[in-house]
């Protein structure tokens, strides 16, 4: 193995190795072993950024006969690997605090390490089959993490449902991958070339798109992500904000060359629809994590839209900025949940995730409050924050695309803009309800809630990263991402000639929409009004319910599962009552037949034999009379026979 190969192997395997070590050394050693794999891994991943500076690292190996698979780390992969490492490292740190009292914490770190390695493998994989391998492993490890508290039935159920929804989408992906590998002969991501449109190309593209929609929780698959909130909150920060859900967008970003215009259009439509639907769903949630879950779905919708409209570099930019501020939001939410858990751990009725029980937390969790505020503003898309820059590129890309595509496409773009207004609305609502106003339940300062290293460091790092300067020097230039040169050799998405006005309009509109959204949220949830929120129930209007229940996605899945169950019952019935009955009938028939044959044998065949014997007996008995032994009788019979013979010859 060459040098880069060893290096890459280390980068990929260190989290897993560390996790296994943590598991084997047991719960008591967790504080010492949890970061053993992550720290050197993080350094190695950082080095990878510079190793792949000149040319990308490409490794090919034979896995299946006739199919050599391969890794490739180009700049995009290297950056994303570093990103995953960074967030995963912070999550490891935060988890040490969050799960400190959990007796299975060593098992948790093993699963976390496994997840990280799977995710890194996905980013480094070049061959589509290898992508699929890690894609599935990511799904599996997230199943393990969502169901980490498996003895609680609802959590186990959520894990299963999340995996199943993903699996359905993965079937689509597998078809896409196999078509690419076997039929279109384009197995390597790094060597994709544009292909002329044909039904097969559409089909392969749709397969890949379905896979991406599943993993990135897009319509119609997004129902699994709110369920996935059953996992420990640091897991949600890692998996359901920064990394796993971004895998779909990443895949789309990679396969853009082979996506036909039809598939791109579909991606744009579904992305925008998801962005809007999820933003609406986020407006009415009471659960602090559910708001974030729907907001993640919504932001991923932006990214998918970005790929669909051809602004895929902007999508990658948004993936990057979103990873930081959303991980920050989730971890801050985790800090809130953890606080309530510590405060009310005797009260099992108390729901520490319900925002109706919160309010005024800025006084007891000052750092968390600050972080939530910064990251939330970034999510809102306010200028001077990272989210503004990256969203900008997608929105203007969508507008330009619409102006080139046709009137219907403006509907898609409008949805994206409406979402841009709804996002600050639900973010503002959440921040106001959680941190401002008067506390709606009894709260007090607790010691050790925001320890320096394990909580403050990750939270503050993520919050700081949400400020514009860490993305671009110019807070108003969406194409100013300092990684542009490194990632795309500056071949970035820019408004084409003659479309400058769209960029300017988008800019103005975004500022107005985000500021407007925040103001509206303040109007509705300002401290003086938020006290009444503690009695808020489940929305009763039809639109309120539609939003609160997340467009009834869970119900739709349940209905589909019912249909499937009916089919299952039908086939089981068919198996028992038709096929097996037929088999048994053949068995019974053959028994009946053999009984009949026995009767035939006994009565007819044997009977014939007996009949013959009886006849012989009869004849014998008849003729015994003749053989009386008297000469006269014999003479008479001789005459009779002679006469008979004569008569015979006569006629």
């Amino acid at each position: 193995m060459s040098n880069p190969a060893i290096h890459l192997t280390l980068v990929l395997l260190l989290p897993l190795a560390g996790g296994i070590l943590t598991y084997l050394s047991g719960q008591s050693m967790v504080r010492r072993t949890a970061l053993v794999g992550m720290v050197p891994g993080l350094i190695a991943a950082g080095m990878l950024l510079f190793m792949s500076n000149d040319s990308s690292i490409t490794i090919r190996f034979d896995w299946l006969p006739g199919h050599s698979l391969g890794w490739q780390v180009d700049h995009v992969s290297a950056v994303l690997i570093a990103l995953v490492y960074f967030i995963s490292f912070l999550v490891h740190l935060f988890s040490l605090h969050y799960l400190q009292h959990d007796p299975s914490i060593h098992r948790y770190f093993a699963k976390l390490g496994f997840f990280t390695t799977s995710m890194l493998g996905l980013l480094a994989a070049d061959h589509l089959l290898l992508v699929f391998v890690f894609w599935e492993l990511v799904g599996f490890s997230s199943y393990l993490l969502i169901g980490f508290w498996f003895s609680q039935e609802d959590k186990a159920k959520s894990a299963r449902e999340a995996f199943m929804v993903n699996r359905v989408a993965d079937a689509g992906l597998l078809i896409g991958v196999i078509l690419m590998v076997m039929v279109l002969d384009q197995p390597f991501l790094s060597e994709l070339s544009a292909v002329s449109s044909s039904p097969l190309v559409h089909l392969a593209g749709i397969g890949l798109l379905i896979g991406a929609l599943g993993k990135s929780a897009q319509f119609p698959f997004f129902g699994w992500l709110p369920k996935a909130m059953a996992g420990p909150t640091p897991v949600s920060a890692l998996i359901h904000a920064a990394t796993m859900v971004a895998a779909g967008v990443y895949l789309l970003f990679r396969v853009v060359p082979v996506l036909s215009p039809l598939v791109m259009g579909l991606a744009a439509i579904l992305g925008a629809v998801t962005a809007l639907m999820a933003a609406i769903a986020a407006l009415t949630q009471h659960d602090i994590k559910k708001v974030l879950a729907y907001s993640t779905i919504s932001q991923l919708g932006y990214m998918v839209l970005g790929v669909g409209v051809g602004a895929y570099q902007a999508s990658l930019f948004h993936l990057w900025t979103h990873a930081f501020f959303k991980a920050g939001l989730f971890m801050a939410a985790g800090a809130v949940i953890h606080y309530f858990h510590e405060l009310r751990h005797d009260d099992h009725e108390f729901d520490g995730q319900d925002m109706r029980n919160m309010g005024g937390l800025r006084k007891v969790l000052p750092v968390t409050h600050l972080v939530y505020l910064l990251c939330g503003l970034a999510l809102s898309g306010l200028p001077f924050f990272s989210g503004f820059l990256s969203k900008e590129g997608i929105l203007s890309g969508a507008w330009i695309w619409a102006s080139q595509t046709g009137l219907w496409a403006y509907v898609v773009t409008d949805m994206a803009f409406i979402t841009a207004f709804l996002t600050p609305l639900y973010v503002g609502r959440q921040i106001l309800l959680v941190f401002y106003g008067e506390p709606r339940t009894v709260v007090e300062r607790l010691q050790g809630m925001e320890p320096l290293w394990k909580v403050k460091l990750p939270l503050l790092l993520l919050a700081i990263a949400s400020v514009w300067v860490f993305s671009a020097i110019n807070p108003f230039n969406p194409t100013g991402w300092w990684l542009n040169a490194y990632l795309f050799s500056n071949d970035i998405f820019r408004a084409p000639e003659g479309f400058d006005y769209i960029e300017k309009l988008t800019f103005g509109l975004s500022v107005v929409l985000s500021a407007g959204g925040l103001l509206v949220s303040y109007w509705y949830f300002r401290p003086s009004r938020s006290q009444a929120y503690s009695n808020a129930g489940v929305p009763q209007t039809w639109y309120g319910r539609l939003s609160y229940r997340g467009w009834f996605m869970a119900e739709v899945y349940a209905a589909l599962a019912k249909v499937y169950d009916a089919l299952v019952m039908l086939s089981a019935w068919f198996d028992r009552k038709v096929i097996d009955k037929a088999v048994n009938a053949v068995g019974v028939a053959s028994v009946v037949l053999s009984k009949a044959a026995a009767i035939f044998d006994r009565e007819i065949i044997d009977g014939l034999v007996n009949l013959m014997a009886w006849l012989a007996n009869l004849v014998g008995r008849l003729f015994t009379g003749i053989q009386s032994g008297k000469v006269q009788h014999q003479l008479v019979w001789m005459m009779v026979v002679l006469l008979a013979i004569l008569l015979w010859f006569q006629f």
Partner: protein
Amino acid sequence: MTNYLLSWLIFLPFGAALVIGLIPDKQKFLIKSVALAATICQLIMGGLLFVGFNGGVKPESWATAFQFVEHLDWISLQLGDFGKLQVAYFVGVDGISMPLIVLSALLLVIGVISSWTVQHKVKGYFILYLILSGSLIGCFAALDFFLFYVFFEFMLLPMFFLIGIWGGPRRSYASIKFFLYTLLGSLFILIVMIGLYLSVGTVDQFGVQTNTFSLVDMMSGHYLSDTVLAPGSEYTMWGQSLRYLAFVFLLIGFAIKLPAVPFHTWLPDAHVEAPTAISVLLAGVLLKVGGYGLFRICYAIFPDIAITMAEPIAILGTVSIIYGGMVAMAQNDVKKLIAYSSVSHMGFVLLGLAAITAEGVAGSLFQMVSHGFISGALFLIVGVVYDRTHDRQIENLSGLASKMPRYTFFVVLFFFASLGLPGLSGFVGEVLVLMGAIGAESINGLFPRWIGMVAVLGIIISAGYYLWTLQRMFFGKYWTREADWDARMVDITAREWVMLLPLAILVVLFGVFPSIMLDPIDNSVRFFVESILEQGQMYLSK
């Protein structure tokens, strides 16, 4: 010893069975030890076979395709005008049979360990077990159809008694169903065997005709002119050519064994009643005899019909995958669930073979071996619960993960291996088969793509029933239906470790490094594919 390796593999268990026959009934431990020693020797020889097998050369023809060949005349009769009846003891392996022999040798050892708890009629049990074990290997090694048939039938009887005497409550129904069903299958095979014997052979320079049962001659196409099964022969029955009918007969015969829908209903019954060790062998190895028969006899001897029948066979495989999985979902008895999942997974064997592409055929073989590991382990896993509770209903237990974490680890591993998680062996077989099936249209055009795409649904279905079972039995709050089970719910014992751990290692090893198996057999697979396609076209043009 390597010269007679296959004979040792086949006859050592028979010898051991004789030895056990001489041991008094009461010496149970000795009996078990002899059986264990014999199967361990078999495993070591299986290892030698694997190591000694040379996969580096692509065979030129069927005549040179086999290694470890032994050839002895066995029965030779002059039949006057009918020529000479020639039956040979003719064994050898190629890349198709070698992995299956190694797999058998491994599972046979695990079966003995699993049988350690057998209490009554120990002597009879292990004698039958060893007869079964020798016949199994014989079946995979035979290169003479007559010999194959003898071993094939020889497996049936011990199996019948093992289920019928040591089985569960409905054992007599299950064993008779198993026996009659598979006997029916072998009758179909017998008919074709006779037909092939009459059609294949050589004529020497004096015009003396020698018919033969040699599979190698049959595969090479040494047909006597103007015989019933010669390609292009005029003989027909029911308006179909005899070759076509012969293929269909063989297909039914082996599809029963495989089993493919709709010939599968003997399997769940047999599994539910069979003791754990016998279930392991039944699912792990015996089903593979059906798959192997399709490869060696059905396809290799009738390649022309294999080509023309590719589409219906592929559909049959896909139906098995989907239907078997859906019926599995409806089961409440874990053992039945796994039995139906076997039907589903063996459907992949059929689908991959039907494609006659390198990927499909290699995948089909890999799937057989991987399914051997996984289904063997799954039945052992059911055995763990059954030993403790004498119950297998899913709804009678829940939350086992909290009580038996190590056990649950194996359960999750093997469930996910079976549902095709990458990194575990089940995935490799399935993905290769699907690649072959979806790619077939553009590689050899045997059947349309949609069949393979529909088969992809199988990965959703299998995830459905395994995850559902995990959730109900292993997650949630710990609970048992009967209070007195609780005391017996201890985590897995040392004996169970010994059985499960090697399979777990193999499942991971084969999943991460499939080339362990695929590299040695690659040349055989490629030769198989090429010769089927070439010979098939040649026969068809006659």
